């Protein structure tokens, strides 16, 4: 038993949890903790805005698989975390946020920088705590980490009143066993029901046109190897969601790439015509399904997910399997191997049909040697990094192009705000990812609209010499909204024009970063080469692209896959392609 002040107890428990990096910004109510951090062996990243701190911790967590830690002060400090927490919550990212709160005797008095942070963050965290007694502090911090990283991961917030951080108390760090026992209502299902797994194996043997529909759960669970083994064993083609990118190598012959709203023609055709859909760590989001009544209309559905509430939420499932994806896939593979089966023969016709779809409508775009096509920029980023970089993205058209035209081959390679769709996520997430994986090239694909939402944190990247590259797909528009206005609102471009914007090159330089620009297609490669040669500072690359390029193919929101708008053909305009099963 040692006697320490609350702030030092926090530091000790964080050390015991193996934390090495903390992102955040101090203020009155959290000062005591920052004072304790001053002598602590953490990498302490001072950001310029708390939202960026939350996204950095998120990028750090997604890139490494560890729990990200973010700190902020009470009131505005904590409310600035809200978007970051909601982003992490939607994408099941393990975070622990520690916020200062006004001293206990001020709570409820509308004190300076007071906000009901536990109330505000309740619906956007997996769980949250207000520490009311210093005796609970060590257990609460350990519970927070345990809850954040187990089951379906998510952000957990701990609100600590300032007087508790200043108070002295004896304490002991609770053991793992004590932490588990202190949460009697929290028992994630990880094993998977054997009867259901057996049933799933039977369904797979019987299926003629099966598709694996893979989401971020495979990455979180670390089940990429098992997934590959299953796909290769049973010769089932694999389509991934935006969150699932990297779970299955996109260069693999069985890869169908992304499905859904901006999915490939062949992925959507395969799903539409499938007789068995095996959903693995995915949650039937509306951006995937489109019109739910017409989603995979003839398919039986097997759904493997650790979160029981994800199963039969949006769509009724035939074989629900609640469990950790890795465990379940291992058992499923074992079950499938029990009886010999001629998989090649069973899949021959189906894979041939898919090959035909792939050849008919590959992922493509209209090339140009006059203006820079955004897709071309992504392809060149892919080429110059040999497909080995970690890519982050903001939200909008550039995010979709980054998803479509970079071929991902390993888990935790593509980080973006899939669920919440948070603009401004890409750049700070890249900084967090680079801190977690310094040996990797980390590139943020950003939009001009998205980047500017967290542009202040270039200063942070410069201060800590984080050599991330930011590739701005600059079309001087809120491009995705503009695209929707073009397609669905008679091209009435309401409030989307961003032609008044900073000179991104000068802006980068003013922060002490490197600024580069390409205006013509032939400049893209040299500019990227120059950027790649710089490794001591962030590099901001302004890619001035075709202003009105559209993201295609596209299934309009709430529509069936039948009503997919395809890539521009000879007519140069998107045409509606009706899929017939």
């Amino acid at each position, binding site marked *: 038993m040692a006697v320490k002040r609350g702030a030092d107890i926090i530091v000790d428990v964080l050390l015991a949890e193996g934390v090495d990096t903390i992102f955040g910004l101090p203020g009155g109510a959290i000062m005591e903790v920052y004072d304790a951090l001053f002598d602590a062996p953490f990498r302490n990243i001072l950001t310029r805005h708390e939202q960026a701190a939350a996204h950095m911790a998120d990028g750090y967590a997604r890139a490494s698989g560890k729990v990200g830690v973010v700190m902020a002060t009470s009131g505005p400090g904590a409310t600035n975390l809200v978007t970051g927490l909601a982003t992490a919550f939607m994408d099941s990212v393990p975070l622990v946020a520690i916020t200062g709160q006004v001293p206990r005797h001020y709570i409820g008095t509308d004190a300076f920088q007071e906000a009901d942070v536990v109330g505000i963050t309740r619906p956007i965290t997996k769980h949250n705590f207000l520490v009311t007694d210093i005796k609970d502090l060590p257990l609460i911090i350990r519970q927070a980490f345990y809850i954040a990283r187990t089951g379906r991961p998510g952000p957990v917030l701990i609100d600590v009143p300032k007087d508790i951080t200043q108070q002295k108390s004896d304490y002991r760090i609770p053991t793992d066993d004590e932490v588990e026992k202190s949460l009697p209502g929290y028992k994630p299902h990880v094993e998977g029901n054997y009867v259901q797994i057996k049933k799933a194996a039977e369904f797979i043997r019987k299926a003629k046109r099966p598709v694996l529909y893979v989401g971020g759960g495979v990455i979180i669970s670390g089940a990429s190897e098992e997934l590959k083994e299953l796909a290769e064993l049973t010769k089932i083609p694999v389509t991934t969601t935006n969150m699932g990118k990297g779970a299955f190598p996109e260069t693999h012959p069985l890869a169908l790439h992304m499905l859904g709203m901006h999915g490939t023609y062949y992925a959507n055709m395969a799903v539409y015509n499938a007789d068995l859909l095996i959903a693995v760590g995915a949650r039937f989001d509306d951006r995937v399904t489109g019109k739910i009544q*017409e989603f995979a209309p003839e398919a039986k559905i097997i759904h493997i997910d650790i979160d029981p509430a994800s199963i039969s939420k949006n769509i009724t499932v035939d074989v629900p399997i609640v469990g950790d994806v890795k465990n379940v896939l291992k058992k499923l593979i074992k079950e499938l191997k029990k009886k010999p089966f001629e998989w090649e023969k069973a899949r021959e016709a189906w894979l041939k049909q898919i090959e035909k779809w792939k050849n008919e409508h590959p992922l493509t775009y209209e090339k140009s040697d006059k203006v820079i096509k955004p897709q071309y920029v992504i392809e060149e980023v892919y080429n110059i990094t040999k497909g080995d970089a970690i890519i982050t993205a903001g939200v909008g058209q550039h995010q979709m192009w980054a998803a479509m035209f970079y071929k991902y081959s390993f888990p935790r390679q593509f980080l973006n705000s899939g669920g919440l769709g948070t603009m401004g996520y890409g750049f700070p997430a890249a900084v967090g990812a680079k801190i977690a994986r310094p040996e990797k090239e980390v590139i943020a694909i950003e939009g001009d609209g998205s980047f500017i939402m967290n542009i202040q944190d270039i200063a942070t990247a410069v201060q800590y010499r984080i050599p991330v590259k930011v590739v701005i797909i600059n079309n001087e528009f809120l491009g995705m909204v503009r695209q929707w206005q073009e397609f669905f609102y008679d091209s009435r471009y309401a409030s989307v024009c961003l032609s008044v914007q900073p000179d991104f090159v000068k802006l980068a330089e003013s922060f002490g970063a490197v600024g580069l620009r390409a205006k013509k297609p032939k400049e893209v490669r040299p500019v990227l080469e120059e950027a790649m040669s710089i490794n001591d500072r962030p590099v901001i690359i302004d890619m001035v692209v075709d202003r009105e390029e559209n993201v295609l193919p596209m299934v309009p929101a709430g529509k069936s896959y039948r009503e997919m708008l395809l890539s521009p053909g000879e007519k140069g305009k998107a045409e509606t392609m009706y899929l017939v099963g």
Partner: protein
Amino acid sequence: MEQEIKTVKLRPEPPKRIGRHIIVVRVQHNFGVLTRITNLFASRGYNIESLTVGVTHEPNIARITIVVKGDERVIEQIIKQLRKLIETLRVRDITTIPHIERELVLIKVHTGDEKARDEIMRLVNIFRAKIVDVSIDTYTIEVTGDTNKIEAFIDLLRPFGIKDLARTGTLAISRESAKYKYAKQIE
């Protein structure tokens, strides 16, 4: 290039049957746990008909009885979402297993003339209610029962003029006497 679609394939949808469900939740009796539950209902758009909460014989455990209307999928989601809360210990839908439902109501009713007084007294006896307070022109009546009985009683008192009314919402508990017979359904 638009091909005409002759048949649109639809996923087979299970029929939607909206019903009233009684869900019993045991939770750790922590600060803010009730807010977590009501928040969950509000943020996911579920309609609570009634919610009753109280501490149990174990002082660190509270029991919440929720009455909610919805189709099977909504009810299933509600139960799953409730189970997902960290402080939830147990969630059961006891609608289809034998159980006892009770509500308590306090009603202030205008008494008016002697005839009205007699009539109200008669109703109080029939419904096994109790008069717990009397003033010059009102009775305050206490009655317990399931929702149907309570509704019927209130409707009968309505013509006399109800001055005020307080209801607890439904409390429910499964019947121990039927436990073995229905053990399988209790999961």
